[in-house]
């Protein structure tokens, strides 16, 4: 009986992230539009877009291989599994121990690997351009992320997100390393989600696009899956920052219905805050040139490394 309820909660979380992901993207767009003093599309517009894409036929380029058609499913699967493993409203779910934070990052790496390959499959210049730039960005963003994980893991004594959230909730005091990690994590989150100033999700201007260049050839249901994966990834990063740095309200393992209700409400509030902050940040900054991005991400890597070094050194004092 307990197993069934655990399974239900785990399954519920998987469906929850899937259901909420487009809403978060819609909210970010709405906030940006309002800050530009536009009315903006409804926040449920991403759902309508997905439904429209799913109804359309898929147009596949003539030279495409099986990899091009399989990649959206693989990308979606890896991203969904990763997003479902980050605690949202509760910690200590049934399968939360099957992958720690390092594995979650690596799962996103798997998704990116296939996305870049899919971009190169047709053999167009834009696909290669997007893939090449994406791998350059990830080659700095991923080590920065691992350094952030090191900082968090050294504070919490664990790479498991549920344990981390528990330790953070119990209170670790103000630490310089955590502040550095938070800044670095925000930079990495912007880069990983192809947001301004690293990439612009709403452009199709040839010279500036990265993510959009890779998925240029996709249409119909394949594009729907890729868009949904991107939305899931955004949700994942907001959940991740929320779970580690603002763990308040998370229902602990084996909690009652009241705790879960509280968890839902606080999670919703955190998502709204995260989306609003992202929208406001994006509205207030311009996109960078591609070759400025390594400096930006290099700063994140250095901050993460500095945070880790401080923790290593402070153990000896």
């Amino acid at each position, binding site marked *: 009986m307990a197993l069934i309820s655990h399974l239900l909660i785990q399954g519920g979380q*998987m469906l929850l992230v899937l259901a909420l992901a487009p809403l978060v993207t819609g909210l970010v767009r709405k906030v940006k539009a309002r800050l530009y003093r536009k009315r903006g599309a409804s926040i449920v517009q991403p759902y309508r877009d997905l439904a429209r894409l799913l*109804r*359309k036929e898929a*147009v*596949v*380029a*003539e030279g495409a*291989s099986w*990899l091009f058609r399989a990649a959206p*499913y*693989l990308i*979606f*699967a890896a991203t*969904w*599994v990763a997003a*479902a493993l980050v605690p949202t409203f509760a910690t200590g779910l049934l*399968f939360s*121990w*099957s*992958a*720690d934070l390092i*594995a979650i990052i*690596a*799962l996103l*790496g*798997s998704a990116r*690997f296939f996305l*870049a*390959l899919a971009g*190169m*499959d*047709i*053999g*167009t*210049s*834009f696909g*290669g*351009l997007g*893939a*090449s730039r994406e*791998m*350059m960005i*990830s*080659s700095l963003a*991923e*080590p920065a992320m*691992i350094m952030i994980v*090191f900082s968090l893991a*050294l504070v919490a*004594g*664990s*790479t*498991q997100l549920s*344990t981390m959230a528990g330790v953070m909730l119990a209170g670790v005091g103000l630490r310089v390393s955590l502040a550095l990690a938070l800044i670095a994590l925000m930079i990495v989150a912007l880069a990983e989600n192809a947001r301004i100033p690293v990439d612009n999700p709403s452009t199709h201007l040839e010279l500036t696009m990265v993510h959009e260049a890779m998925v240029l*050839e996709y249409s119909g*249901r394949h594009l729907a899956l890729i868009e949904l994966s991107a939305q899931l990834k955004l949700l994942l990063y907001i959940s991740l920052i929320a779970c580690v740095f603002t763990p308040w309200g998370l229902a602990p393992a084996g909690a009652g219905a009241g705790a879960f209700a509280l968890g839902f409400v606080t999670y919703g509030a955190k998502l709204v805050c995260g989306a609003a902050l992202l929208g406001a940040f994006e509205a207030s900054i311009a996109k960078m040139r591609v*070759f400025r991005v*390594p400096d930006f991400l290099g700063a994140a890597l250095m901050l993460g490394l500095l945070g880790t070094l401080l923790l*290593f*050194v402070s153990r000896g004092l």
Partner: protein
Amino acid sequence: MGGPLIAPLPGTLVSILALFALAALAVPLARTPLGRPLVYGASALISATAFVFGVQGMLGTPATLVLPLGVPWMGAHFSLDPLAGFFLCVINLGGAAASLYGIGYGRHEHAPQRVLPFFPAFLGAMSLVLVAADAYSFLFGWELMSLASWALVVAHDKSADNLKAGFVYIAMASFGTLALMLAFALLAGGGDLTFATLAHAPHGPLVGALVLALALLGAGSKAGLVPLHVWLPLAHPAAPSHVSALMSGVMTKVAVYGFIRIVFDLAGPPAWWWGIPVLAIGGISAVAGVLQALLQSDMKRVLAFSTIENIGIIFIGLGLALAFRGNGLMAAGALALTAGLFHVLNHALFKNLLFFGAGAVLNATGARDLEKLGGLIHRMPTTAVVMLVGAAAISALPPLNGFVSEWLTFQAILLSPALSPWGLKLLVPLVGALLALAAALAAACFVRLYGIAFLGRPRSEEAAQAVEVDRWSRGAMVGLATLCVLAGILPGPVLDALQNAVGPLMGARLPVQTDVAWLSIIPVGESRSSYNGLLVFVFMVLSAGLMALVIHRFASRALRRAPAWDCGFPNADPITQYSASSFGQPLRRVFARTLFSAREEVTMPPPGDSAPARIRLTERDPAWALLFTPLARAVEALAERSNILPYLTIRQYLGIVFATLVALLLVLAIWR
């Protein structure tokens, strides 16, 4: 149930002998049409048998054997302990796969008599190094391994590049053996040279430090550690592809074994700082190797440079293990050593697979240059699938095997704040950052390799006409790809088996993993970290399957083929695709400008001229510029000077003899 029919150690020795006999037999057989399948088939069978002996040796108790061979008053000592057993498994697994692959691949060999005799000798020599238990047998096997592989490197002797590669290789190999010889001599300090004596011979801290340095030079040069790696990207690609696979995937592991045997076993308890040079060199090798792999456009050279990266990752694990052990943290050391050894196995699996794939491409298209390939996923479906598995595995992507060993290494790094010396406190996080950087760059490197060679449109007529390789080669590749997946989703049993080798070296072992619920791996403690490759794999399959089902049930299933969209400007010419060098351009610009002096020269035709614009890429390995070129020049100058030696008078010769004698006596007088 009785004991095994043949004890593993004698069995291994018989297998080695059989391989040498096969090598001799291959000389006449090579000229007959049946020679190739016979030799490769027999070496596949013998390697498979030796693999079984390796498993028995890894799980059983150490055995020793003395044979009246070699040095008269000493005999040849052999032993098979779990460490040697593990490496025996790795080497013979790779050997069996390469032999199987060779049955088909060798068909395209122009001069089989230059390959067939040396192939089994190479395999036998590598196994001989592993079971040797005295310095003579060890060095004999080591030299035999070097010579046999050298013969295979220069097998295609019509190419000047191969001959140069062979020359650099044999020079570096001799240097490595010299270093190892000195290491053994220092350890022995006058006693006999069996490993049992060496391990217990007392020696001071200075001798220990020298032995560490010599082992790093000797085994490190064979393994391809920076800056002693210069021969590796020349020699590994020069050999036939299945031999390249053996050299990269397997022979470097023999070097890792040599390092572990000397430093962890024979040199006694490590000083606190021994981990520092190993960690630093490992971290630098990992990043430098993968960065240079990103600059290459020759497929086999990309793979050879990536070997340097993976050896770096293995040495990071070994360095951590040394640091932990030197500071009394045995349990953490066991984790680090397990991570290193697991990566030894993983790298052997996927590097062999990738070299086989490169060989298949070479056979099908006649090209190793990425700029001439493309679109092979349509023409070579099986090779494309297994190469995808190999590329994903070496990029450390879950749920495959490369990720598990890197994850374990990261977990070991996270235990290292417990190390008290300041040097280690500052170095370990840096090495962690280098490891993370190397992992991310490896993903970029293999997206580039796979995307350019197998995806897109063919860039040459040969690539457009490629045909799938024979079934022996496909069989070997599919087998290795399956093992990559299995080791990734079920790492627990492998980790448990490794503990037999780790336990005696570190005095500690990881908790038993196969008892953990759901087949997770929990290296330290449940609240600390756990990973379950099987569940991640199952979840991914389920969610992809579920989504496919939902889409096919509720969404549109219509599919239309149309010309590529490409933002409205499709161009039918395959030359408009991204090439290997253009894919690497951003990374080259960000990382390689200062490190490898990578430069781009663009020559534009004047306006109105219809000549194509040309781009020329140059890069320089600082190891050549700063170390080897000056060294070569110094050696040449010295040789020039000593050229007078054959033209002296008899009086001068006698003088030299006398001076030498006096000098030696002086040394003895001061030493004692």
